[in-house]
Every structure is written in C-alpha cells, then in structure tokens.
C-alpha cells in the first residue's frame, strides 16, 4: 500500500463517513432549488402585498370564486396523483407509475387552460399590465406577474412530467427521478396555497 493510498484511506474515513443530510445529491439539489424558488415567490408576494397595502384605490375585480376554486381542486388533486405515481414507481409497477404521472401532467394542462381562460376574461374586461377599469394600474402588473410566474412553473412542471414520465417508461430514469420531480410539483401546489388568498380571495368584490 502506497502512502497515497494511506492518505486516501485516512481522508475517506473522516470526510465521507456519513453525509449530514443523508439524501441523494439530486434530491438535495432539488431541495436547494425549491428553497431558492421560495425566495423568488416570497419576494413577488411581499412586493404585491406592499403595493396593495400602500395603494388607496386597489381594485377588487373578482365576482366569482368558481374558477379559482376549481383550479385549486385540480392542483391539489394533481399532487395526490403524483404521490400515487411515486408509490407505483417504488412498487415497481412501471405502467401504473407512467399512467399516474401522465394523469398529473393532464391535470396540470387543465389548470393552465383554466388559468389562461381567466386571463383572457380579464383582458376582455379591459385589464392590461398597466391599466384596468377598476382602479390603480398597478393591479394588472402585479396580478399578471405573480400568477404568470406561477403559470410558468406549472407549464415547466407539465413538460418535465411528460419528459421524465417517458424516460422512466423507457428505462432511462428510475423511481428516484419521479420522487425528485414530485418534490417540484408539490412545491408548485404549495405556492398556489398562498397565491389564492393573497391575489384572488382578498380581491373579491363584496
């Protein structure tokens, strides 16, 4: 045994004894991304709250909660289907895991469709990024920014679900990859829980 081997051995016993978090690298990377993305959304929501609090004639344009309630239900259900897909993947049931992942992607597409339909409805009523018929023009900018950022995440998630699902089916990815994607998808769901009350429910017309 060379001195180099001895040195390596000495290092490995100390440095690689047991990682403090004991989770796979890809999963840790996803968690770090989620923490960073939390800051992005939090900054947007705090900025939104700042403007809403500091602006006297803030509009309250939403008359119905039906659409946003349906969107919330769909997104929450997609989290459940994602979990079922992960359980199927862990159990080695490849076709079920692929099927549930695609159902999750489909629910994401329906959510995005409802979201865009709502946007178009507001645009038809005269709302743009810089003006609207109800009050301060800042409302449009903040509304489209916050919901647009979330919609971008949903769209990215849907694409990722389809790609990872197909690669899992083809054998290139395994259950760990489904779990890591699931973390992202649940995070998108989690953010929506803050967007709904702050952006929609607090702006209901009474």
């Amino acid at each position: 045994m060379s001195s180099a081997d001895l040195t390596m051995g000495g290092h490995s016993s100390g440095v690689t004894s047991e990682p403090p978090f004991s989770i796979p690298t890809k999963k840790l990377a996803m968690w770090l991304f989620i923490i960073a993305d939390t800051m992005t959304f939090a900054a947007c929501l705090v900025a939104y709250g700042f403007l809403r609090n500091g602006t006297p004639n803030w509009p309250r344009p939403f008359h119905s909660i039906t659409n946003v309630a349906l969107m919330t239900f769909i997104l929450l259900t997609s989290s459940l289907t994602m979990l079922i897909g992960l359980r199927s993947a862990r159990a080695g049931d490849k076709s079920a895991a692929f099927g549930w992942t695609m159902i999750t992607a489909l629910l994401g597409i329906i959510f995005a469709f409802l979201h865009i339909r709502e946007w178009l409805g507001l645009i038809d009523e005269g709302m743009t990024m810089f003006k609207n018929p109800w009050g301060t023009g800042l409302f449009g900018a903040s509304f489209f920014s916050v919901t647009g950022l979330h919609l971008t995440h949903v769209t990215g998630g849907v694409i990722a679900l389809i790609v990872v699902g197909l690669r899992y089916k083809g054998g290139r990815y395994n259950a760990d990859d489904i779990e890591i994607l699931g973390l992202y998808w649940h995070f998108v769901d989690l953010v929506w829980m803050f967007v709904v009350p702050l952006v929609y429910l607090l702006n209901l017309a009474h």
Partner: protein
Amino acid sequence: MTKVEEHTGIGKDLAVYVCLLALAGLQFLIAYQNIDAAQMFWRMLTVACVEAGLAALFFMHLWSEKRIFRWFVGLFTISVLLGMQYGWTDSFRMLVGAAPFSK
C-alpha cells in the same frame, strides 16, 4: 420517500389530501366573512401556512427526512422569509403619503 413510508399505504396521503381540501375550503369561507381586510389577511395567511406545512411534511416527505435536514430547510426558509418583511412600514407610509405611482 423512506422504506417505512413505502409500506404505510395510501391512507395517510388521502387523509392529508382531504385535510388540504378542507383547509382550502376554509380559506374560501374566510373570504366571505364580514371582517376587515387585515383580519381576513391574517386568518388566510395562517391557514395557508398550515396547508404549506402539511404539504411539505407529508407530500414532500420532509417528515421522513433526517431531523437535521428538516431544521436546515425550516430555519433557512423561515429566516429569509422573515428578513423580507422589512418593507411593510414603508408601505404604510406610501398609503399616508400616497406615492406618485399609486395614483
């Protein structure tokens, strides 16, 4: 997802899902209460935090990770979120002084 969780079945996931639906429903109920916006905001934010906690712990399996990792994620996130709250007093100043861009 840990080995233990793999064998607990879908019952827990369904229970958490139903809780999240109920909490989301509660937020909608709060929206129709006859209270001022500040009270409504705090109630909704509290419910949203409970929802987020449930989703992170059980849907994202944070509960089954090592304790040190839970502390890492929790403390790191909460400390930065708290750090972002420094601007609120200025938003009240804007309300009183009516900043030009708010008109």
